[in-house]
């Protein structure tokens, strides 16, 4: 597919649009960009080779960034430097959420480069100032001493573009183009650098390329036995032509990719030294606590500031449109003073909404839509309704941002999944040109979709507060309660599924009517099963709480609907759930293999301890197929307990197996907290839940044992951060049905 095209041109020029077939590129001052990697090279000041790597990236639809945005233009985001000391240094924009993205990317680069992994260093990110948007050019010029051609500068300005996309590939999931771009950008660069080193060796040894081999950061001339390290060749290599089409290794020749390697970011995390957004500390910094309107859309109408301003350490009460903030010498003082206030907010006419009225509105939207047409020769029709609640992300690190406005410039320090868009948000809030705003991205204490574009309210607020205390910097920290009650929630969805079965219980048709957007959710709503007549359609309900992307996005809801419903159909047909699915998956061999593997791992059909039940589910999301079997029991208090999960995963290529495993285990835990406990409810227009006691998490004591196996596959690389989540809820619901005969169609799963 187009994403896998690659093109690399000579030093100093981006790859052009030479096939004319691609029309999605954007024409700008740099000419028309296409979905290609492009590479610029130069010599390091003290000798050595440097390559800057960019890729044109189309942001995933779910982030709602079209190709017209800057997200669709080119960025030189990543650097490979080969020093005379034979070190390979990879600099990747820093946006680590814990999936090991940077390590995985570096491994792919090192594989193509034939670098000795022990000589590869990852620069977590250039130090703050270097990474700051707009300064990246200067920073690299300062640091490396190589000069940047004028046309490059614009491209460099995009350097802070989200590592989610650079990292792309399996580490964070996302759309195909995301993974494609993330994956091939650095791989191409690694391969290109290797070819340039080979050319340098050919010149040095006066030998034909065919007699040279690159391996472990060294090039050897077979016939003469002479060899030179990459470092020795790097300076000469920098003068070589960048190959137009570097040859990439076939997967079966991988030596590094596919082996477990330690993540580079872990040592600083266990030492307590890693700096997250909330840890930013600046000289002269103030602290702010904030309370926004409890009802979405509400505005601050009045607040008596006196109770706060009379308290020790308090500097100011700041009135924002939708919130009131208190600035003090310390966060505790700010939060205590905030608690002393009794602000009033308007409710935008939404102050009477509650979970029941929201549900009723969804039902009304579906009623208007009407059911699908039944099939004429159906023996039986099954029609049921499912429902899932709003969910919060509840990242461990609450929202936080630090901002400083001084001398006509604005600086922001925060952890985001997209620094580029965060910067734009800050510019708007500061009423400054984007070029006068610097974004210093920090480690993220969890993302899961909360720190994406259009959800940067915490940055906007920090900037507004910074205006009123300018020129002093201010760190805004949300309380856990503020975080829980002002999220961009996973959407509330009601779905009606209906099927017509033939006399053998095989589905003749499948209709899904759900609240949401067909465009966004339609793919996830379609079952993978072989059914002639599949009809999915959406009805847009009135919106109450604001919503956003939540780990695995629409698959987390539709995975539950589809995989619960197919289980119901198996039961209707009197067939085993694995066998029933398998019979409808003969056209999908990867699904079939994953289904079978998970069943084998769990000893499906084998004996179970007294009081235990098993359930299975399989969902493909972000190019990865995951089948999971849950083993459950019901406790004395009627709560559901999950003892064990077995997961079979086909994600195409596994880059770093130990991290792949961690991502699936983490996804299952994340999905399980939601399946069993999580529900954001609305009363008088506002979110009712406040903190972990009423939004409880799986802990060590109730975390199931999770076995994961990866299925060797030559399919395109798929995501891993998200696909572990969707099968969890249906697998558990199906297990509960097998055990108790109760079919639970509403999340979280609660037995009557």
């Amino acid at each position, binding site marked *: 597919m187009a994403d896998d095209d690659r093109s690399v041109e000579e030093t100093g020029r981006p790859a052009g649009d030479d096939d004319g077939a691609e029309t999605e590129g954007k024409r700008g001052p740099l000419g028309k960009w296409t979905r290609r990697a492009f590479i610029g090279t130069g010599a390091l000041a003290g000798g050595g080779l440097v390559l800057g790597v960019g890729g044109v990236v189309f942001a995933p639809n779910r982030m709602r960034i079209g190709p017209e945005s800057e997200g669709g233009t080119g960025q030189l985001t990543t650097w490979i430097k080969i020093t005379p000391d034979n070190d390979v240094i990879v600099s990747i924009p820093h946006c680590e959420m814990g999936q090991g993205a940077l390590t995985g990317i570096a491994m792919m680069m090192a594989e193509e480069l034939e670098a000795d992994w022990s000589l590869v260093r990852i620069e977590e990110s250039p130090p703050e100032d270097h990474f700051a948007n707009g300064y990246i050019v200067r920073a690299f010029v300062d640091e490396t001493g190589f000069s940047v051609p004028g046309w490059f500068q614009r491209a460099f300005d995009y350097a802070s573009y989200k590592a989610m996309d650079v990292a792309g590939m399996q580490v964070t999931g996302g759309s195909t183009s995301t993974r494609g771009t993330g994956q091939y950008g650095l791989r191409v660069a690694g391969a290109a650098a290797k070819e340039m080193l080979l050319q340098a060796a050919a010149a040095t040894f006066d030998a034909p390329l065919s007699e040279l081999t690159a391996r472990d950061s060294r090039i050897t001339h077979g016939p003469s036995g002479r060899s030179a390290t990459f470092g020795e060749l790097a300076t000469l290599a920098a003068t070589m032509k960048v190959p137009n089409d570097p040859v990439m290794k076939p997967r079966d020749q991988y030596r590094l990719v596919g082996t477990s390697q330690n993540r580079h970011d*872990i*040592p600083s995390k*266990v030492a*307590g030294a890693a700096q997250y957004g909330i840890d930013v500390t600046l000289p002269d910094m103030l602290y702010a606590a904030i309370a926004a309107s409890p009802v979405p859309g509400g505005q601050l109408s009045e607040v008596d500031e006196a109770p706060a301003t009379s308290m020790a350490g308090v500097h100011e009460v700041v009135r924002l449109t939708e919130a009131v903030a208190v600035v003090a010498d*310390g966060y505790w003082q700010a939060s205590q003073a905030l608690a002393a206030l009794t602000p009033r907010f308007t409710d935008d006419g939404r102050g009477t909404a509650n979970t029941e009225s929201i549900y009723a509105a969804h039902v009304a939207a579906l009623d208007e839509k009407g059911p699908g047409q039944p099939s004429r020769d159906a023996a039986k029709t099954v029609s049921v309704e499912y429902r899932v609640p709003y969910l919060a992300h509840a990242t*461990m690190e609450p929202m936080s941002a630090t901002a400083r406005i001084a001398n006509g410039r604005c600086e922001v320090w925060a952890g985001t999944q997209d620094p580029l868009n965060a910067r734009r948000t800050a510019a708007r809030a500061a009423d400054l040109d984007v070029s006068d705003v610097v974004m210093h991205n920090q480690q993220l204490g*969890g993302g899961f979709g909360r720190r994406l574009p259009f959800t940067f309210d915490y940055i906007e607020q920090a900037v507004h507060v910074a205006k009123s205390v300018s020129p002093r910097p201010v760190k805004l920290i949300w309380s856990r309660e503020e975080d829980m009650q002002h999220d961009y929630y996973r959407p509330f969805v009601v779905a009606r599924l209906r099927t017509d079965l033939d006399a053998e219980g095989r589905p003749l048709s499948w209709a899904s009517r759900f609240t949401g957007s067909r465009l966004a959710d339609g793919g996830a709503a379609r079952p993978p099963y072989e059914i002639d007549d599949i009809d999915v359609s959406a009805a847009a309900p009135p919106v109450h709480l604001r919503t956003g992307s939540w780990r695995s996005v629409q698959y987390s809801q539709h995975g539950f609907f589809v995989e619960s419903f197919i289980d119901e159909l198996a039961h209707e047909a009197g067939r085993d759930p694995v066998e029933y699915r398998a019979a409808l998956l003969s056209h999908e061999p990867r699904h079939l293999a994953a289904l079978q593997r998970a069943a084998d791992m769990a000893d499906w059909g084998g004996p179970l301890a007294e009081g235990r039940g098993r359930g299975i589910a399989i969902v493909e999301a972000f190019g990865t197929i995951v089948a999971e079997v849950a083993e459950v029991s019901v406790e004395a208090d009627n709560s559901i307990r999950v003892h064990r999960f077995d997961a079979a995963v086909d994600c195409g290529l596994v880059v770093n197996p130990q991290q792949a495993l*961690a991502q699936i*285990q983490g996804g299952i835990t994340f999905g399980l907290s939601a399946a069993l406990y999580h529900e954001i409810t609305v009363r008088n227009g506002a979110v009712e839940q406040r903190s972990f006691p009423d939004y409880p998490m799986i802990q*060590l004591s109730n975390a199931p044992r999770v076995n994961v196996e990866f299925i060797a596959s030559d399919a395109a690389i798929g995501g891993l951060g998200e696909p572990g989540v969707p099968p969890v809820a249906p697998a558990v619901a199906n297990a509960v049905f097998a055990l108790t005969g109760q079919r639970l169609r509403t999340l979280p799963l609660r037995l009557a």
Partner: protein
Amino acid sequence: MIDFTLNGIPTRLDVADGTPLLWAIREQAALTGTKFGCGIGACGACTVHLDGVAVRSCVTPVESVAGRSVTTIEGLAPAGGLHPVQEAWIEDQVPQCGYCQSGVIMAVAALLEQDPAPSDEVLEATITNICRCGTYERIRGAIRSLAETTEP
């Protein structure tokens, strides 16, 4: 004004009574390895040692540590070194986002000090930290391998 020992160093901080130890450590002492997760003692991200015992610093008023000894993640091992729990955490690649892990490591280090080979029951009752990334499988595994190495 409060006098106590912080990571082995006699320390005087100018903080009002009633301020949680968490904020005194993070803001006055500028040690940000101890994290804020909830402020109500529900998540464990803020766990530190008070005279060797794991406590949640967000619900520990600063005046209650006067004259006592507080250890944070930064002081768990001598400067530049790693505590065995930290080593095991690297060995088993436990952290994901890592935000909860200072607290988890502090809680585990305190537990193993008391009970080098805790039973599952003790472990599950004691380590109640929340990890939103879901690293429990590896937390358990790393504790188990630590327990093995200390067994006679």
